[in-house]
Structure formats: structure tokens, C-alpha cells
């Protein structure tokens, strides 16, 4: 007996799936924004005196090496007990993704910062700049441009990783897919559809990152 494909289950429930996309985008954008901001102090801490930089090292190594799924579950279930406050599933998901992504983005920032030739720092300091002025005017403007493609790659991975949030009930694309699959008893068609939607959305983003890589390379 061969499987009878029935795509009508997918077409009929497409609006529900597309509904999930907006939550996927919200989770991606919020986690990315938080990590872009929090990653900078972590990177700067990591680059400062050994007496304090170990704090950043511990953070980075901890969250880079925890499986994302474990982290998501932990933030959703254990964290509320510790801090005595319960977040919505979406907020828990964004916190977990941000904890993880901040560690990676801090390392990207650090690589960007250390890639700026030390001679420029010497020149800026010799002019009489303070450390803050040196970072604001000389190092960060160049470092950010250099790491843009790497940040773009992180964005694309993050966009796909938000599908993990389905396990704690965040109504994003994957979760909606599971709901529809259960309702219709058509998991093959529905998950195929979900996969295609993810691909159609992620591939142009990846192309955009490629474009960024080439664009910035020519400028160097």
C-alpha cells in the first residue's frame, strides 16, 4: 500500500501556518536585538584586565556549550522557581535564545575588535584620545563593518533555531505546524510545507549575507 498524499490539508491550514511566521520573526528580531546590545559589554569585558575578564570567559564558555534545547527548557521551567517570576513562553524563549546568542556575538565582536591594527590605537592615544574615545571613534566603527557578515550568518541560524521554541509552546511556525498536523492527521504534508516555508524564508536571507560578504570585501 502506498501513501496517498493529500495536500489539501496544507492549503486549508496555510493561514494558521503563516500566522506562526510573525511569532518566528518577533522571536528572531527580539533575540538578535538583545544579543547585539548585550554582546558588546561582554566582549569589552573579555578584552579587559584578567582580574575581570574571566567573568566574560565563564559566561561565554557556559552558554556556548549548553545545548540550546536544554537552555530553553531550563529558562522556561527552572528559572521561574529561582527568581519567583514566570515569563510567557515567548519571553522565556527570547531570554534563552539571547543568553546563547550573546555568547557567540560577544566572540564575533571580540574578533572584530582585535582585528583592528594596534597601530591605530597607538595613533589615537598619541593624539590624546581617552579609551572611550578610541573605541567610539576608531575601533568600533571599523570593527562593526568587519563583523557585519558574521552577524548576518548568526541572524540566519537564529531564524531557524527559533523552531526549538515550539517545545515550550511558543506559537511560532513550527508549533503551528505541529498543531495543524495533529488536527489533520497529515504530518507528512504539513511538515513538508513547514520545511518549504522555512527554506523560502531563510534562503533569501542567506543570499543577503553572501551579498554583504562580497560587498564589504571589495571595500577593504
Amino acid at each position, binding site marked *: 500500500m502506498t501513501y496517498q498524499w493529500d495536500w489539501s490539508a496544507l492549503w486549508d491550514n496555510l493561514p494558521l501556518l503563516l500566522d506562526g511566521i510573525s511569532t518566528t520573526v518577533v522571536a528572531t528580531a527580539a533575540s538578535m536585538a538583545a544579543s547585539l546590545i548585550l554582546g558588546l559589554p561582554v566582549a569589552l569585558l573579555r578584552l579587559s584586565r584578567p582580574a575581570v575578564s574571566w567573568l566574560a570567559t565563564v559566561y561565554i564558555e557556559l552558554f556556548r556549550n549548553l545545548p540550546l534545547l536544554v537552555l530553553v527548557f531550563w529558562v522556561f521551567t527552572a528559572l521561574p522557581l529561582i527568581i519567583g517570576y514566570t515569563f510567557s513562553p515567548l519571553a522565556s524563549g527570547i531570554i534563552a535564545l539571547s543568553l546563547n546568542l550573546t555568547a557567540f556575538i560577544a566572540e564575533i565582536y571580540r574578533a572584530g575588535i582585535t582585528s583592528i*591594527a594596534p*597601530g*591605530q590605537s*597607538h*595613533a*589615537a*592615544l*598619541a*593624539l*590624546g*584620545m*581617552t579609551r572611550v*574615545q578610541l573605541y567610539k*571613534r*576608531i575601533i568600533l*566603527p*571599523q570593527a562593526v*563593518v568587519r563583523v557585519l557578515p558574521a552577524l548576518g550568518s548568526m541572524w540566519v541560524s537564529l531564524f531557524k533555531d527559533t523552531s526549538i521554541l515550539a517545545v515550550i509552546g511558543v506559537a511560532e511556525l513550527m508549533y503551528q505546524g505541529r498543531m495543524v498536523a495533529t488536527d489533520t492527521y497529515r504530518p507528512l504534508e504539513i511538515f513538508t510545507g513547514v520545511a518549504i516555508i522555512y527554506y523560502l524564508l531563510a534562503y533569501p536571507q542567506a543570499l543577503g549575507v553572501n551579498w554583504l560578504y562580497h560587498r564589504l570585501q571589495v571595500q577593504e
Partner: protein
Amino acid sequence: MTPAFADVLLRVEGLHKTYGSAPVLRGIDLTVQRGEVVVMVGPSGSGKSSFLRCLNRLEEPSAGHIYIDGIDIAAPGVKLPLIRRNIGMVFQHFNLFPHMTALGNVAEGPRTVLRMSRAEAEKRALDLLGKVGLSDKIHARPALLSGGQQQRVAIARALAMQPEIMLFDEVTSALDPELVAGVLGVMRKLAEEGMTMIVVTHEMEFARQVGDRIDMLEHGAIVEEGKPNDILRSPRHASTQRFLSSLLKERAT
């Protein structure tokens, strides 16, 4: 010394610098009068660059005093950004800011450090770029400039802070031979205008024509000091003789 050198601008006393257990500077004493051009020579590894970089504390001296206008800038608690404004430095590899135009590079110090308005800072930068002969390159990024042009921008950038003293750290060593003269010409003009300068260089012709004094460094100590003509014609110290003849051999090949 001629009476033109009336007052002491810089006095270095017993300057020591060690990396770990390796001594780089071993008790340097040096007095520079206002308007004087001191040329420092010596084999590589003799500590010339470290000495210059101690003068604006890009490197930390291990011991000793550095008085500028009578204030010991090697003392603890000194506000480094404040003292560095007054000490211009030009580097072997230019170290321009690649994300800024020539004009932006020169205006950066006045804008960010001196908090001048953009218009004021750019006016000063334009004047200085004109002075180093680059009025036609003000909007060029460093990557589009030759080494000689970049170095002249770097000199203008240091001058924009209107420092009392300029430090030149082998500023022509990384240049193609045909570009050296333009940079030395700018430095000669500066010296003629009365700028106080300490110049680390291997350009002996420049030392002879522009320098008021040559200091010969070896193993982190000044081994000979004197008027350029005297030192170049009849060096007394054996290591100065060795160093000068090695330079001549290099030229000949």
C-alpha cells in the same frame, strides 16, 4: 649651543625600561631645548623606538623622570590624554585611520580631543594638508594614497593638535626611496619654523642638514652625543664608527 635655545622643553632623567628581565633602556638622560632638533641613531634593537614611546607613555617607563615644561609626566597619577595632546607622534607605518578621509584623519584630533566644531577642525585640517602639499587629496581615503602621502597626512594629523614637541619614529623607513624626499622636506620645513623635534632615523644627510645634535644609542644607553658634523665626520666611540660604516655599506649595495 646658540642663544636661540633659551629654555628647556624636555628633560629626561635616568629613564629605564625593562621587558620582563630584559633591559631595553638603561638610564637615559637627555635635555632638549625649545626649538631644538635632536636626531637619534643607533642599530636596530638599541632602544630608540622604545625611548620615543616612553616619552608619551605609549610604553610605561620602568624608572626615571620625564619633565615636559617642568612637569614630570612619568609620575603616577598623570592624566595621560592631557599630556599626550602636547606631544605629536609620527609612526613608521603611518597608522592612519582607514575609515576616514585625509581631511577626517587630520580633523579627528581637534574634533574629538579638543572638542572643536566640525567647521573649525576642518579649517585647521585644510591649512595643514595644504602645508604638507596635499590640498588635492583631502577627500582621499588612506588606501588610495601613496606611502609618502600617507606619512605627510600623518604628520599633519599630529600637527593639528598644535603640540610643543614632535616625535618621529623612523618615519621614512617604510617608504619607497623616491617618496622619502617629500616627507623629509616637510620635516625640514617644520624644523625651520622652530618646532622642537626628536627624530629617530637612518637618514644621515637629513641629520647633518637639519639636526642640531645627534645622539647615538646602543644597548639602551646614549654612547655618544654631539653636533651632527662632528659625529658624522669623526665619531669617537667605536660603536658609532661601526654603525656609520654599516650604513655606508648598505647605501653602496
